[in-house]
């Protein structure tokens, strides 16, 4: 057989050395093709492996249903605080701050943590989310000045986190809401606030300023995810877009409950929604009442969640039911997104959403425990 192979090689006009070179080249070409094809999925997954493990480690430390029940069973807010001190995530912040502020700080730290570890391609929206603390702090400052709190009382309201904390802390000494707005000149929020300032000066209500901040934040968040080019980004876009839609819907429902018309609502709505586009939002804002807003959502993914609470709304007249239903929808939707890409963005979204819920629930429990004889069954109903 060796002779036959040698004859075959020489009949092709090749020497043994040339044949060897061809063999090496063929192996290299086949190898390169195999490596390129097989390594592509690896390159997609690789940036997420380390962040996934880190967020899953923290997800494992979130309170489960049994622990939340134990917290609900506590007798007062001190017991809640002591219970939380047993969790490594809350122990540090509780050493430095009172309970409510500690929970706000923990939330801000969570967003910072996720923004830090998120892979580069999806970092931007999480970086925007981590700026929410600045928005909340500016709102607290404006509220404090509007109701005439002292600088010390104002500082108590600020969350000691975020990129603008030191500047905002210094602004606690400002004399008026207008001073705060003008002092924020040069920050990313200045244009939004200055545009809404005339409305504040006309009405002497800070609602236009707060809404301008919310609108700016949500717009920036939505635009930060504007090119959903792969599955991870598509999931992120759905997650962020749902948050924007839910915020818009909550605003419209509350405005309709207060009897406001299109002209009064439209300045505060972010027109470029996710599933609820500009024309749909216009329809909803033009609806005469809350019932028509809910029926106008037919065909959208929010319809079922809101229709389910319609009978209870008809009984109680409370729009808080819709807000809770929307929060629950957003939470369930995030959970479903989290399971879509387990070696990608899924665990990050899952952790962020569950941590957000945990903090909201802890705040509900803490608030309820401050009130005498607040029934535990009622607390359980209020939890997300």
């Amino acid at each position: 057989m060796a002779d036959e192979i040698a004859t075959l090689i020489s009949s092709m006009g090749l020497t043994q050395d040339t044949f060897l070179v061809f063999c090496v080249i063929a192996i290299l070409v086949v190898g390169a093709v195999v490596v390129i094809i097989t390594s592509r999925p690896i390159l997609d997954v690789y940036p997420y492996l380390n962040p996934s493990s880190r967020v899953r480690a923290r997800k494992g430390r979130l309170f489960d249903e049994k622990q939340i029940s134990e917290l609900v069973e506590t007798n007062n807010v001190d017991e809640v605080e002591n219970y939380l001190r047993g969790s490594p995530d809350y122990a540090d912040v509780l050493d430095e701050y009172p309970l409510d502020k500690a929970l706000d700080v923990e939330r801000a730290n969570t967003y910072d943590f996720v923004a830090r570890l998120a892979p580069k391609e999806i970092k931007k929206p999480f970086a925007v989310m981590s700026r929410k603390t600045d928005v909340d702090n500016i709102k607290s400052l404006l509220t404090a000045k509007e109701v005439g709190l002292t600088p010390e009382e104002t500082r108590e309201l600020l969350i000691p986190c975020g990129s603008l904390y030191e500047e905002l802390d210094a602004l606690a000494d400002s004399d008026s809401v207008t001073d705060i707005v003008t002092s924020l000149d040069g920050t990313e929020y200045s244009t939004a606030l200055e545009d809404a300032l005339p409305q504040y000066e006309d009405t002497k209500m800070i609602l236009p300023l707060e809404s301008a901040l919310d609108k700016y934040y949500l717009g920036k968040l939505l635009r930060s995810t504007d090119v959903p080019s792969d599955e991870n980004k598509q999931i992120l876009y759905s997650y962020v877009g749902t948050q924007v839609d839910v915020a818009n819907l909550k605003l419209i429902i509350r405005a309709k409950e207060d009897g406001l018309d299109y002209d009064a609502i439209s300045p505060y709505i972010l027109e470029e929604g996710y599933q609820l586009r500009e024309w749909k939002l216009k329809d909803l804002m033009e609806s005469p009442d809350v019932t028509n807003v809910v029926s106008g959502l037919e065909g959208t993914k929010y319809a079922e969640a809101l229709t389910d609470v319609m009978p209870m709304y008809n009984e109680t007249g409370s729009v808080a039911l819709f807000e809770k239903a929307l929060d629950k929808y957003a939470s369930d939707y995030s959970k479903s997104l989290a399971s879509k890409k387990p070696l990608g963005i899924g665990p990050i979204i899952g952790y962020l959403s569950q941590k957000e819920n945990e903090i909201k629930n802890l705040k509900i429990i803490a608030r309820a425990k401050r009130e005498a004889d607040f029934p535990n069954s009622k607390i359980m109903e209020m939890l997300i």
Partner: protein
Amino acid sequence: MVEIALGTALAAIGAGVAIGFAGLGSGLGQGMAAAGSVGAVAEDNDMFARGIIFSALPETQAIYGFLVAILLLVFSGLLGGGQGLPTEAGIVAIGVGASIGFAGLGSGMGQGIAASSSVGAIVEDNDMFARGIIFSALPETQAIYGFLIAILLMVFGGILG
């Protein structure tokens, strides 16, 4: 220049393919498992030992490739100065290398992904350790098939014995 028979030279290519591709798969897999493990250890120091176990799992593909490459080098006469291989056995040797090389590449990458996921699952829920090991061990089978075929090719292709 040292005179090497064509069969021996082909066996050398086979040895390179065996360790080259198996090592590549093993390295990629180990890199993925280690990336997940480092993340887990950053959050929970107790994960170190378990992270090492999962990171070490994709090492086996490189070991299989290394073993096959050594056998090819020894029995082709490149190591130990034995008799050179005939040309047809040299061609079989390329098949031997491809068998463990490509099987090790796929197996190593698959095992790396499974191991990294398992580390994530364990750091979230300690009870997942045993199940994580089982799932991570599954992609080992492809490397074992490749290794077995490589040995059979060497035995019946006139390289061993």
